[in-house]
């Protein structure tokens, strides 16, 4: 039985500046704001990028609370990447501690901090850009602006909508296994048996969905129209320029501070 669910928008619905930017532009921005950061491992450029991006928070319409909640897993896991640097990076400067191959030195500490910050700087744009993006809007843009095949884009979009149903299935199957006396032991075996049944459901649901979509004229060969036109506007150019500026400032700051170094040098 489906419980009555309230209207979805739990997020703030007031339009933010970024809402007027085309989702395809957001994809470009996400690349623009992350790829250059792979070039160097230093504290300055990462820190500058983080600060500048956080300064753009009001443009995204994301509440600070939401941002913190979504950043939490990244902030927790970034040090994991840092620890390996801390222990195994090429030693340099004063050595504080060493055990076998593991050596903690001035250089390795600096590198560990730089790597942690870099992980955060790489994740931040994705959260800021796509925190409020509606999947339907993204699909419309991918098909109309990026010209990806509409059959593929809409198929994926319709498919992802069924994910919630699988979650319900999974829950019910777990309860059913308890009811049938096999819920006490063998959690791994149970997992695989449930996963298999879910696969069967997925195939069936996919077939049904395909039928329903075909019955509504999907894939009929008639040129498709779009009820929600997705276009590029001057604002998209402004957004891209803003992204370029952030990266230029971040890298420029590192060069000016003399901390910029290519990963491969």
């Amino acid at each position, binding site marked *: 039985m489906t*419980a009555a669910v309230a*209207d979805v928008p739990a997020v703030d619905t007031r339009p933010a500046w970024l809402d007027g930017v085309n989702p395809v532009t957001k994809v470009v921005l996400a690349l623009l704001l992350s790829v250059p950061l792979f070039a160097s491992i230093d504290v300055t450029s990462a820190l500058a990028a983080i600060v500048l991006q956080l300064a753009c928070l009001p443009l995204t319409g994301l509440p600070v609370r939401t941002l913190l909640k979504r950043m939490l897993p990244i902030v927790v896991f970034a040090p994991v990447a840092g620890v390996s640097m801390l222990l195994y990076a090429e030693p340099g400067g004063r050595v504080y501690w060493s055990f076998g191959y593991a050596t903690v030195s001035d250089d390795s500490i600096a590198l560990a901090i730089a790597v942690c910050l870099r992980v955060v700087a790489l994740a931040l744009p994705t959260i800021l850009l796509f925190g409020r993006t509606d999947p*339907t809007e993204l699909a419309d843009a991918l098909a109309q602006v990026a010209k990806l095949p509409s059959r593929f884009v809409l198929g994926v979009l319709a498919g992802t909508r069924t994910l919630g149903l699988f979650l319900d299935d999974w829950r019910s199957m777990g309860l059913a296994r308890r009811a049938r006396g096999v819920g006490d032991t063998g959690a791994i075996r149970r997992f695989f048996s449930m996963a298999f049944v879910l696969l069967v459901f997925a195939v069936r*649901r996919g077939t049904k969905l395909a*039928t329903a979509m075909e*019955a*509504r*004229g999907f894939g009929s060969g008639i040129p498709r129209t779009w*009820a929600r036109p997705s276009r590029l506007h001057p604002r998209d150019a402004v957004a891209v320029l803003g992204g370029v500026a952030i990266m230029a400032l971040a890298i420029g700051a590192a060069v000016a501070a003399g901390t910029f170094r290519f990963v491969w040098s």
Partner: protein
Amino acid sequence: MTASSARPAGRSGPAGITAAGWGWRYAGRRAPAVHDVSFTIEPGQRVLLLGASGAGKSTLLAGIAGLLGGADEGDQTGALLVDGARPETQRGRVGLVLQDPDAGVVLSKVGDDVAFGCENLGVAASDIPARVAEALEAVGLDVPPGRATKALSGGQKQRLALAGVLAMRPGVLLLDEPTANLDPEGVREVRAAVEHAVAESGATLVVIEHRTEVWADLMDRVIVVGAEGGLLADGPPVEVFARVGDDLAAAGVWVPGRPIDLPVLAPAVTDGESALAASGLSVSRDRRTIVRAGLEVRVPRGAATGIVGPNGAGKSTLALTLAGLLPEAAGEVLAAPQLAGRSGRRPSRWTSRELLTRIGTVFQEPEHQFLAATVRDELAIGPRSRGVATADVDVIVDELLERLHLAPLALANPFTLSGGQKRRLSVATVLADAPPVIVLDEPTFGQDRRGWVELVALLQSEIAAGTTVVAVTHDDDVLRHLGAHRIDLGLPVPAGVAS
């Protein structure tokens, strides 16, 4: 103007359907699903399509909708034409609504979903909003276009599917058991929406439905497809029901005015003892959102109890909590002292194995509870799990296979059974461990008359043997025949009520 010129056939108004010795055999199957069917449906006619399960009604509907695919999907014999042309070439002329309310929804917002068909047919973008509004109006779905489709009830989802089809302005409306999975309120909504839509558009209507009383008075013709091919009957409803009513009833169709051949149990006199009881009970699916709070519940021992109420009232959640599958969010469910497990009288604290011999649960979707590759193994799982000797397991399983008419299917995979067979098997798996309490969630959903009668008879014999039965149901007839006490959950709690 762009709208109509973009349509391939360019025709509008009701369409006629002609079948001439038509048949379809799915690739890889030996027997045809439909064989030698001939009829002519005039534009604007309203046809109820009946037949035993497996007679190929749904295949026929898919054929009319042009969704069966090409030669690699199966072999066609004879001809099936809509407006004198092959249905595949007439996308948008024929609209189809399926049984499963979740299967018809494509997009995540109501307005977008209704627009989907128009977009696919190349309707000009500027014309689409008007069409969407008109279609939503026609089915009486009074929600904002931005409403999430997953927040709709079953009846609303079916009306949404209907609106999505109507927005394409089809000449034929095909409905494949559109109300089988709905509660009475949803059934009324959908029936009213279809009646209104057909009256406005004049479209030809073809409906498959076991529950004929819902649709019979709207229809001006009944066609009965034979299981062995051809048509069993074709004519005005009254005439057809009078002539082949017995055959139809035997085939599982609810023929209007035909009584159910089962005794009605008198409301059971209980000894005042409860099998299960709880006070101040709050129930929740995920331990966060409280679905219902402050419930006073008593399930009398050795009798039937029905949990009733509208969609979203928390009926299933309460049933699963009483069954010891969901932990109580507040309050305690206590079982009768003689049922107590090692850790006490709270079913939610029992181990899975303790639960097995105390409270059995039949889930709404039988497939959720299937674990084995054959029907026989499925029935043996419970007894084996509680340590019954192999020889005795065979005795229990053989007896159940006979009693529930599953013997010929003993080696079949549970997932390949029909809806009625799956339901019987799911009940049988519970009976195999003879629990003193059985909890069932919507046991008669989607069942035809035959499946319904078999299930109710089975529950009656369990009650006679002293079993406590708890059933979540929308079906008043079930509760009447079981002489059930009622737990009425009344109106749903407004969203956001917490403990």
